[in-house]
């Protein structure tokens, strides 16, 4: 009987949480027009969220591309099809690996930082102080961070894919001796701008939206103690990663 009650409580808690999350999103979206006049707030956040994430994205992209080149070559060479290596690398990166890995890395690098920052502002009552001064903390603190994350993820994804394709070229062509012309021409014949690249771009936009939303919500909703902030940060990374992987399946089945 007790387990049943706990299950009911858990369900109700979660439904309530989703409700809070949605209301919070509407609140953030409503706060966006008021900060458009002060765009430097967004620029500073793009620096914190996007530019500082650049290094990990570029390095991971390079290595993912290189691994794809190596593994792809080892498999394809058995069938004498190593000329398709460029296609394999480019399609894997544009359709799946680019958007998904970028979103996961972004959740780990920038999402957790957003949650911790907002959560600590709450714990040290900075948000409450803003409210006392009749400044809406959601519009002043959360909305710029939300826009910055939403803008940064697609850009980071495009960089990840570009560097990855170059990494595949580095291993496949320079190291393993696949013909450079075949590498690029197989890619160009097989990759469609609208079907592959734009769909990957749409995925990254959706992921950017969801990951940033989860990150800022968890920070704003955190229990204002040091333990609460640490839990919220963990929840951001776990929930954002699960959301990205789940949404990736849904988007893939819808678009491809």
């Amino acid at each position, binding site marked *: 009987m007790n387990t049943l009650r706990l299950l009911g409580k858990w369900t109700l808690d979660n439904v309530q949480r989703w409700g809070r999350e949605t209301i919070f999103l509407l609140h953030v979206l409503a706060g966006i027009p008021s900060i458009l006049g002060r765009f*430097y707030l967004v*620029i*500073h956040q*793009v*620096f914190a969220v*996007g*530019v500082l994430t*650049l290094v990990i994205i570029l390095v991971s992209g390079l290595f993912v591309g290189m691994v794809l080149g190596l593994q792809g070559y080892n498999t394809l060479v058995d069938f004498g099809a190593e000329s398709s290596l460029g296609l394999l690398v*480019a399609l894997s990166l*544009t359709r799946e690996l680019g958007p998904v890995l970028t979103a996961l890395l972004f959740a780990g690098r920038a999402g957790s930082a957003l949650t911790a920052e907002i959560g600590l502002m709450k714990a040290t009552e900075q948000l409450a102080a803003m409210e006392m001064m009749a400044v809406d903390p959601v519009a002043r603190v959360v909305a710029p961070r939300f826009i910055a994350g939403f803008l*940064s993820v*697609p*850009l*980071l994804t*495009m*960089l990840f*894919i*570009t560097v990855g*394709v170059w990494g595949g070229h580095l291993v496949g062509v320079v190291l393993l001796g696949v013909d450079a012309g075949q590498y*690029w021409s197989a*890619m*160009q*014949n097989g*990759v*469609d*701008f*609208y079907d*592959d*690249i734009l769909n990957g*771009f749409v995925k990254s936009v959706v992921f950017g939206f969801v990951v940033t939303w989860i990150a800022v919500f968890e920070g704003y909703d955190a229990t204002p103690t040091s333990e609460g902030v640490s839990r919220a940060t963990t929840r951001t990374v776990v929930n954002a990663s699960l959301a990205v992987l789940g949404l990736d399946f849904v988007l893939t089945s819808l678009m491809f």
Partner: protein
Amino acid sequence: MTKSAVELWVGLFVAVGLAALAVLAFKVGNLSAGDIRDGYKVTARFGNIGGLSIKAPVTLAGVRIGRVSDIRIGRDDYSAIVEMTVDNKYDNMPLDTSASILTQGLLGAQYIGLDPGAEEEFLKEGDRIEITQSAIVLEQLIGQLLFGKAEGGD
């Protein structure tokens, strides 16, 4: 970090990100030369299209001039109707052009090869190519060969 340095970095970040999108579009996706969005559509009927798929290239003398845009079945004669989009640049294909389904290499992907005829009039939107040659299905060919061998051996 000073305000102008932050702005510089953000500007650089956005510029490089957009440049990456452009590189993907033109270098990886081949947006510049590859996609034929505005072309005229012609159809052709084939008895068997083999492994031809939508977006397969349409070539003239080995040069790609279009893409297969649709494949369906004709209700009346059960043949495959292949609709292809040919780039508007090549609007001087004679009316009696023939289309055949060819294979890149021995086991490669299939594509359509066009062979220009000698008519004075040109193909235009909605026309049908009358002279066609179906795909060669390797299994059938081997089957026929073996069958022929067995008959000859008797």
